[in-house]
């Protein structure tokens, strides 16, 4: 039987639209459900006080602060390192066996399951370097996980800067570094920042890498130094969902909502930076 072209076209349209809706629906449902169930839990007390009564009451303040510390600390380590590596790969590295190997290593690093990073961090930072379960060990572990994202997006952003800008700058008596610092980096910055935020956002939401390296089950106070363990939102969520019997549901969803808001607002900032830079661009 021959189906007319119009009907084929109609079927294709319906199928493609359905696929799109099917993909978008879970996102809307997840966010919506968490928001609806979790919202009643969100009070000043919930956000700003420590948990008590075996974590069944009180708030999540130490976990919020812990996640902030971990994210910031990861940024401090991974951002300069990642951008520097990206500059090397994009601007200085010749295409040879060594740099190809480095690139393959970075790509593979991005594919490693996050629990493996956690185990590696436990072995290297917690045990071998004797940092103990601590913020610093968690940040270092998260940094290793985040670096591939930062390096590859930053390298891509640097490569997108027109070659002619570099030639012009060199021809005006610029050194390679002057050219990078004054022309290439400013041009690539929005793209680099997007990568940075996307990487840090992943670090903020991960549980496995901090499971053995930084996270404390329960800590009534805030950490005092980078060598202290800390509570963190994703791990806290894991704990109150699986380890504490009789946990009120709205506390779990409230915690999830806070974590989600944290991560999504980072996403929003990244999007804003990108669209702003695009609007400003005139060349």
């Amino acid at each position, binding site marked *: 039987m021959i189906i007319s072209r119009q009907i084929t076209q109609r079927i294709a349209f319906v199928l493609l639209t359905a696929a799109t809706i099917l993909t978008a629906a879970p996102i809307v449902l997840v966010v919506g459900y968490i928001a609806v169930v979790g919202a009643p839990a969100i009070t000043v007390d919930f956000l700003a006080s420590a948990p008590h009564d075996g974590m069944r009451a009180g708030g999540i303040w130490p976990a919020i602060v812990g996640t902030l510390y971990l994210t910031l600390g990861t940024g401090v380590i991974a951002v300069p390192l990642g951008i520097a590596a990206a500059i090397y790969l994009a601007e200085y590295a010749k295409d040879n066996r060594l740099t190809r190997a480095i690139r393959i290593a970075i790509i593979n690093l991005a594919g490693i399951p996050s629990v493996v990073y956690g185990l590696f961090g436990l072995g290297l930072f917690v045990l071998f370097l004797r940092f103990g379960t601590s913020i610093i060990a968690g940040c270092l572990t998260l940094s290793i996980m985040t670096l591939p994202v930062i390096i590859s997006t930053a390298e891509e952003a640097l490569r997108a800067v027109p070659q002619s800008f570099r030639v012009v700058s060199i021809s*005006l008596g610029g050194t390679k570094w002057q050219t990078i610092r004054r022309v290439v980096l400013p041009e690539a910055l929005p793209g680099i920042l997007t990568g940075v935020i996307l990487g840090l956002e992943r670090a903020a939401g991960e549980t496995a890498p901090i499971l053995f390296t930084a996270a404390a089950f329960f800590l009534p106070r805030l950490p005092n130094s980078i060598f202290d363990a800390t509570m963190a939102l994703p791990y806290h969520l894991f704990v109150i969902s699986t380890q504490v019997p009789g946990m009120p549901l709205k506390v779990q969803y409230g915690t999830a909502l806070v974590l989600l808001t944290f991560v999504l607002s980072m996403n929003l900032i990244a999007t804003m930076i990108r669209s702003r830079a695009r609007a400003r661009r005139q060349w």
Partner: protein
Amino acid sequence: MNHANAKIVVETLSVQYDDGTESLRDISLAIPANQITVLFGPAGGGKSTLLRALNRLNDLVDGVRLGGKIYLDGEDMTGASVDTVALRRRVGMVFAQPVPLPMTVRQNVTYGLELAGVRDSRKKEAAVEKALRAAALWDEVKDRLNAPAAALSGGQQQRLCLARVLALEPEVVLLDEPTSGLDPISTAKVEESLQEIKRDYTIVIVPHSVQQAARIADYAAFFLQGELVEHGAGQELFLAPKDKRTEDYVTGRFG
């Protein structure tokens, strides 16, 4: 010409690419100071390669091998130990496509100066006006110095690129088909400013047509497939070429 008033002397220069193709073959040429020297000929003749050899921009391309010598004021510029950054400040370059840097008009002009370490803002201001005047652009942009350079028209952008080079007060200005993308009026303005500035600078230009070559040449060199066929004073070469191939090209029989 004798070498006494030559700014640049090219001696048995050859440029080869890694894949074996030869871009320039055994070129010897003296470029006179304070004149407009025109390098012309059909595409692929090696004119741009020679320009890029003069301020070592070929260094940026992998797999280029260079033989022979290039003397600037009697000093060899081809060695590995030559300070290419200093050389490029003495020998500036304007490209075929105007590439304004992603900054304001003013910042484009002061860019090279700032790279060279000039901090004094009064000095920079003065240089901006002087360079833009020399490039015949001042009147058009004096009220738009803080506008993005990319907002200028193509012809204005190309004169901005010239101004940007002149701000460094180089000794030699290289121009690679600087008017290829411009309308006749902008072209005339660029040519006019070249005539103005040759008092202070040595100019080497790859023109975008034989007509332009004939219009502006004080001294001319004809390139064909990597070979320097003939060179001499502009009028002589265009009116009475010695080589048959030059004559054929100049009279429009090929090219």
